[in-house]
């Protein structure tokens, strides 16, 4: 693991930039624990103060310090992305591995459902979900439903790898040595698909955070829990751009773009690393 990280750091400029961006974002989210103000409180500092030495990122029209508010927002947003990614990874792994290994009608049935979930437009469905839940909408509930809708694409990816693993000799020998399907999948096949699982985690986080920001900007989430989208929502509610309180929108925007580009670059460089052909090329090019 440490060796892989060293290689990635040494040979991939993309990985270095991505890791640096994510490190900054993570640092911000850790700082949330040291915030002098609770995240829900309003009018704890003078409102509408531009960025200064006292208030690094300025203050909002609701009397909150943008910097500390941002740390909470980033933390919650990342937590949200991780939760969605974790649950949808489990779904994608189970469905992808079973579908690829079993084949036959199980595979066809699972993949038909899978393809359906790939194309169904999620935003209207999530909006409908918010419409019926209204005030009971919490970020955990949203994370759960998004995980249930967002596993399909990666399940297909995992299935294609599982299919090629099935025809390898070691699968036959473990089958003949009396291992059950579950044992073969967990002990033999799982290690081979883990790299893909890691790289798709990043993409999945970009997807879920983007969707959460979209919903939050429209006010279709639990707007009282500070997230990046929630911050922009409140800024819009107080017409921050028109009032000239640009820092209220600018800093969350910069933070979310940093997160996105960081996660994306990490995913790209990991994909490069997984593919032996491009790994050779990048090593050869760098030395």
């Amino acid at each position, binding site marked *: 693991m440490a060796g892989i990280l060293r290689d990635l750091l040494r040979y991939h400029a993309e990985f270095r930039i991505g890791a640096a961006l994510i490190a900054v974002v993570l640092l911000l989210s850790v700082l949330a624990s040291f915030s002098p103000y609770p995240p829900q409180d309003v009018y704890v500092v003078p409102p509408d103060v531009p960025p200064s030495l006292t208030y690094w990122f300025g203050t909002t029209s609701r009397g909150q310090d943008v910097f500390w508010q941002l740390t909470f927002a980033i933390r919650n947003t990342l937590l949200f992305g991780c939760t969605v990614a974790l649950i949808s990874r489990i779904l994608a792994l189970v469905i992808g591995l079973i579908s690829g290994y079993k084949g036959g009608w199980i595979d066809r049935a699972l*993949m*038909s*459902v899978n*393809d*359906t*979930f*790939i*194309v*169904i*437009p*999620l*935003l*209207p*469905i999530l*909006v*409908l*979900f*918010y*419409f*019926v*839940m*209204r005030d*009971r909408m919490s970020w955990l509930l949203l994370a759960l439903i998004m995980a249930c809708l967002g596993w399909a*694409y990666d399940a*297909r*990816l995992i*299935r*294609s790898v599982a*299919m090629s693993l099935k025809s390898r000799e070691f699968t036959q020998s473990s089958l003949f040595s009396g291992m059950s399907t579950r044992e073969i999948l967990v002990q033999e096949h799982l290690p081979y698909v883990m790299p893909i699982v890691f790289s798709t985690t990043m993409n999945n986080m*970009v997807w879920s955070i*983007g*969707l959460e*920001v*979209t919903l939050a*900007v*429209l006010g*279709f989430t639990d707007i009282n829990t500070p997230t990046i989208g929630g911050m*922009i929502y409140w800024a819009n509610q107080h017409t921050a*751009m028109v009032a000239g309180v640009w820092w209220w*929108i600018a800093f969350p*925007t910069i933070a*979310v*773009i940093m997160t*996105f*580009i960081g*996660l*994306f*670059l990490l995913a*790209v460089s990991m994909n490069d690393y997984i593919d032996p052909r491009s790994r050779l090329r990048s090593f050869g090019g760098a030395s």
Partner: protein
Amino acid sequence: MASLGQPVASVRTPRSGILGTPMSGYFAYIGRRLAQFVLVVFIGINLAYVITHATPIDPVEQSISAVTSFGNTAPDAIEQMRTSLRELYGLGGSPVEQYLAFWKRILRADFGPSMSAFPTPVATLIGRALPWTAGLLAVSTIVAWGLGSLLGGLAGYYQKSRGLKLMGVIAMGLHPIPYYILALVLLIVFGFLWPVLPITGGSAMNLPQTLTFDFVASVLQHAILPALSLILIGVGSWFLGMRALVSNVVTEDYVVYAELAGVRPWRVLSLYVMRNALPPQLTGLAISLGGIFNGAVITEKVFGYPGVGSLLVDAVYAGDYGLVLGVTTVSILGVSCGVLVIDLLYPLLDPRVRVS
């Protein structure tokens, strides 16, 4: 989408007559795609049903509280509204009856009168908004896909070119940016800093919506910014996808052979390389159709475009249950129709599906 996991193979030209019975293979393919289409619609509508019926919250009471919160309503009027809503959404009777009533309404495209624009039927409202969204999405999607695939193909083929490398960096930086942020930036730049383009609405208010030159010109002018925000985000991912595909294809033996045999470069690029890299891009286009709706809702809201996305958001704010359900259903139908069309076009580009 059955061909999602397939590698880019080196089948070159379609000569369907030679390989077995191509037509029956084609019909089997069409049949499978139609079955998939039915399944998408079925699961999508069921999802909507489950969400609206299996939640602990009574949607009728929700709608009523949303409507009555705007002002004082007489108690008997509320009671009337409650009965009509219960009938409208089939909340009476056993679960099986409810389920069948739900499907009946969907199949007849009958979502009752809209509550926020009473008494206009929901179907009329959606019908009015649909051409705007369909037009905006169709044009911007095709432009983004075409431009991204073309540039990405060039970048994959001419890997040494500086300009194309720079474009790759820009595409990489642009495409993870959320729609909303980009739309907002465009709004600020072209609306306030350099006000040359209209920033809201679908056409100028004072023009009658008939097919005159003024109206069409105004529609096009109003569509520039929303379309631009969708295209800028879209081009990036198509560019990156196509570049990756093409840089795999160019290492294939038959490409090297063609180059050595002195086939003209543009011919190698277009017929040997691009053509074989396109099918996965087309599959990607089908997959992304569902996601396009996410962008469209935000874009339409930011630019005040009179499409289905604005309708959906306004319906939620107004507590209009029938309209929200109607838009959700129509978007599921619309996206699955779009996917079906792409699936049916697929054999034209990839002859393998006709014989498999």
